[in-house]
C-alpha cells in the first residue's frame, strides 16, 4: 500500500493505482474525457493534469502511478487555466449544436463547457467539416463531434478484440475511421457508442426519439443469450428507444449487437395484441374471457376423454422464473401431468 496526499488529504491505495483512481476513491473530482477505468490509460485529453510536488510540469493523473509519499495538487491557477483552454479548444472545433444533439444532457463536453462557463471562446477558427455519412445500419458516426479521446478505438481493440477503427491522418485532420474510410463493418457491439463522451457516436435507432431529460431509465436483464447482461432500457412515450449498460454491472457495461441494438422487436407493429381463436380455419379476435374459457373447456374435455397425460406443455426459456414456475405448477397441479418441458435441449 502507498500513502499519498491529494489536496491535503491522506489516501492509502494499493500499488499500481493511478493518481486519478486514488483521487476518485477519496471523492476528489478531476475532470477527464479520455479516461475509462476499463481501458488502458491513454493520457490524450490532458484535462486530468495535476501538479505533483517535485515534478517540473503538471502530469496526467490518469497515467501517473500513485507512489508513497507523493503530494498532489489537483487544481491550481495554471492547471485550471490549461483545462479551460483545452475545453475552449475543443469547443472551437465542435459544431456546438447542442440544441439538436442527441447527446445533449448526457455529454461530457457539454458538462465541461458549463462547468467552465464558456459562453465566449478565444479560439474560434477552422472547424473540421465532414459531409460523408457512414451507411452502416447501427451507428451514426458524426466525426465533427469527435474529441479524439480514443476510447472507441481502445475499446474496439482492447475489449472487443476487433480493431475495426483507428485514428487516421495527422494533426488537426486526425480522424477516427475504419480502414480507408469505408463504411463501418464490424461486430456492431456498440461498445464504442457506449464509451463516447460526446455525440460523435450515437445508435441510429435512437435518433430523434427523445431528449435525455424525458427518458425513463429502467434497469433489467437482456432477453437474449444466457450471459445475463444487465441492461438499462431507455423509455420514452411507452417506447424503448435505447439500451445501455452501466460499467459497474456484471457485464462491466459491455453488450453485444443484439443486447444493445436488438430491442426494436418490443415495439414492433407485428406484436400480438389480442387473443385469437381459430374458427373455420381463420383466426378471429377474441376477448380474454372468451379465449380462456375456450381453452379451459377444451383442455377439460381432452383430460376427461384421454386422461391428463394426453396433454403436454412446453414452457419457455425466454420467460421469467416466476412464469416458468407457474407454468409447471399449472401443468402439474391443474392439468395433473408431468408432461412439461422446455427447450434446454435445443
Amino acid at each position, binding site marked *: 500500500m502507498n500513502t499519498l496526499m491529494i489536496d491535503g488529504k491522506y489516501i492509502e491505495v494499493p500499488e499500481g493505482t493511478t493518481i486519478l483512481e486514488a483521487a476518485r476513491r477519496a471523492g476528489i473530482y478531476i475532470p477527464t474525457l479520455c479516461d475509462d477505468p476499463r481501458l488502458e490509460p491513454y493520457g490524450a485529453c490532458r484535462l486530468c493534469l495535476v501538479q505533483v510536488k517535485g515534478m517540473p510540469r503538471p502530469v496526467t493523473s490518469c497515467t501517473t502511478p500513485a507512489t508513497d509519499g507523493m503530494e498532489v495538487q489537483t487544481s491550481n491557477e495554471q492547471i485550471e487555466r490549461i483545462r479551460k483552454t483545452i475545453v475552449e479548444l475543443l469547443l472551437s472545433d465542435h459544431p456546438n449544436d447542442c440544441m439538436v444533439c442527441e447527446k445533449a444532457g448526457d455529454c461530457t463536453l457539454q458538462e465541461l463547457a458549463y462547468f467552465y462557463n464558456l459562453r465566449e471562446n478565444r479560439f474560434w477558427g477552422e472547424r473540421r467539416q465532414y459531409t460523408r455519412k457512414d451507411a452502416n445500419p447501427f451507428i451514426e458516426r458524426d466525426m465533427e463531434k469527435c474529441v479524439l479521446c480514443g476510447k472507441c478505438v481502445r475499446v474496439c481493440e482492447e475489449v472487443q478484440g476487433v480493431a475495426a477503427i483507428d485514428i487516421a491522418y495527422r494533426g488537426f485532420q486526425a480522424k477516427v475511421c475504419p480502414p480507408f474510410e469505408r463504411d463501418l463493418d464490424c461486430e456492431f457491439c456498440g461498445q464504442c457508442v457506449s464509451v463516447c463522451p460526446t455525440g460523435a457516436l450515437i445508435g441510429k435507432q435512437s435518433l430523434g426519439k427523445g431528449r435525455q431529460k424525458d427518458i425513463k431509465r429502467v434497469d433489467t436483464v437482456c432477453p437474449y443469450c444466457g450471459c445475463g447482461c444487465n441492461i438499462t432500457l431507455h423509455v420514452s412515450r411507452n417506447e424503448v428507444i435505447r439500451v445501455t449498460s452501466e460499467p459497474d454491472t456484471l457485464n462491466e457495461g459491455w453488450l453485444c449487437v443484439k443486447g444493445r441494438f436488438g430491442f426494436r422487436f418490443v415495439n414492433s407493429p407485428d406484436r*400480438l395484441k389480442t387473443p385469437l381463436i381459430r374458427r373455420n380455419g381463420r383466426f378471429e379476435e377474441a376477448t380474454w374471457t372468451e379465449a380462456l374459457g375456450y381453452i379451459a373447456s377444451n383442455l377439460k374435455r381432452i383430460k376427461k376423454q384421454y386422461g391428463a397425460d394426453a396433454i403436454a406443455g412446453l414452457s419457455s426459456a425466454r420467460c421469467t422464473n416466476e412464469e416458468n414456475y407457474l407454468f409447471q405448477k399449472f401443468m402439474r397441479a391443474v392439468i395433473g401431468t408431468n408432461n412439461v418441458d422446455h427447450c434446454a435441449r435445443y
Partner: protein
Amino acid sequence: MAGLATVFGSGAMTNSIQEIEDNDLIFVIGSNTKENHPIVALRMIKAVRRGARLIVADPRKVPLVRFAHLWLQQKPGTDVALLNSMMHVIVKEELYDREFIVERTEGFNREFLDNLEEYTPEVGEKITGVSKDKIIEAARLYATAERAGIYYTMGITQHSHGSDNVFSIANLALMCGNLGKESSGVNPLRGQNNVQGSTDMGCIPDSYPGYQKVNLPAVKEKFEHLWGVKLSEKPGLTAPEMIFEAEAGNVRAMYIMGENPVLSDPDVNHTVKILKELDFLVVQDIFMTETAELAHVVLPAASFAEKDGTFTNTERRVQRIRKAIDPPGRARDDAWIIMELSKTMGYEMKYSHISEVFNEIGMAWPAVAGISYSRLERGGIQWPCPTSDHPGTPYLFKGGFPRGRGRFTTVRFRPSMEPPDEEYPFVLTTGRQLFQYHTGTMTRRVDPINKVAPEPYVEIHPDDALRMDIQDGEMVRVSSRRGSIRLKAMVVKRPEPGVVFIPFHFKEAAANVLTDGHALDPLCKIPELKVCAVRIEKDRA
C-alpha cells in the same frame, strides 16, 4: 445438464463469468463463444490479454480462434475421441492430480484406464483429424495449468452421444483436479436468457423445482402439501417425446408458451405435420410464430420489457427484470395469463405481487430460499443461497460434490448416427451466428440486424465449392433424408472440406428441415442437431 448432474450431482456452470479473467487456461470446446456468448468471450479475451492460454476445439474456424494459442479443428461429432486421447496423454505422462482423484472422486479404476489405453494420440488423430502433436500439446497445457476452465455449449450436447461428450469433459476436469475452486471448472454456457431458470423451476418432465424428482414419494408429498392438490408420480415426456407421442395419438393437446418448436426442433416438416394433427393447440407468444400459426388459440403475451420477475443466467445468478413499458393492446404477461387460465379451470393461484411467486419458489427449493426481491435490488445472487444472510455461491463444489464423490465415467467413442455416404456426402452442422438469434422471432424484426444479416446461407469450403463449381453467393439446394432447402452458398474457409454449416435462424430456409428428429441422445433425449448427412447441388430453379 442431466450429464453433469449424473457425475457431480448438479448440472450448471460450476464457476462465474467473472472468474474467467483469472483463468490461466481456457479450453473452449463446441462453443462459438464470440458469436453466441459475446460477453463471456470478452472475459476470455481479457484473460488472454492477461496471459492466459486459450485452446479452442471446433470443426469451424469460429471467431474466437483468432485469439487462441491452439486450435483443434476436429471433425464434427468426434469430441469423445479427442478428449479421451487427451486423457490418454495425461495418464501416460502422469500429469493427473493424484490427490484430488483419491480424495474427491470415484471410478478412476482399471476399467476406466483400460478404455483410455486405446485412445493413443495416433488413434485420436485418425478419428478427429487433429494432429497428434496438437492433441499432446493441448493435454499438457490443460493438465499443467493452475486454474483451467472448460467452456462448452451445444456443440457438445446436441449429439446422439451428447451425454458421453459431457461425461468426457467431466472426466478430464476430475482427472486434473480442475474443480471446486475459483476460476477452475466445467462450464456449460446457456444459450437463452433463462434456460437455467426454466430448468431450475421444474419445467422438465422428471423434476419439480430444484431438481426434486417427481417419482420420489417424499418430494411428491411436499409439493402436494404446498399446492394443496394430488400430483402424479409418473415422469412426463420430454419435448421430442411429446412429438412422438402426439404422432402415436397419445398426446392430444399441447400448451406452448414462448417457444417456436417448428423452427427450433429437428425435422421441421415432421414437426408441422404432428402439431397440425393435434386435437387442441394453444400457443402463447409475443409474435405470430411459425408454431402459433398452427394453433387453435393464440394468446398475446408481454415481452421482457413489459413485466417484472427474475431471470437466472448461465452462471446461476438470479437477477431482477423490471417492467419498463406497457404491453401493446390487450397483451398480458404470461403469469397473469396462466393464473387466469388456472382460475378458469377451477384452481385459483393467489398472488398479490409477482414477488410472492418467488417466495413460494423459495419454500419449494431451499437453494433459493435466501433470495428475495428486496435483496435482488442490490444486484443478482448466485444460487445456492439458502438463507437471507448467505452471499450466494460464485463457484460450486468447494466443499465437495452434492453426490459425494465426483464420478468418472468410462466413455467409448461412438460415431454420429448419420455419417456421410455417397448419396449425402457432406456433414451438416448447425448453429447460430452473431447477429440473428435463435428462430429469429425477435431479431428478424429489428431492421438494422436484418440489413447486416439478411438471409440464410450455407458455409462451404472453397475446395468443395470449386469441385462442384459453386460460386460465392450462388443459390444452392441442400437436401437430407428429411427434406430440402434452397439458400445462398457462402464460400469460406470456416468449415473444413466435407463439412457445411447452416445457421438455423431463417424460416425461409430452415436448417431444421434437414436435421434428424429421431437421432436422440439416449440419456438426455437431446437431438443430434450438430451432425447429419446432406447433399449439395447447384440450384436449377
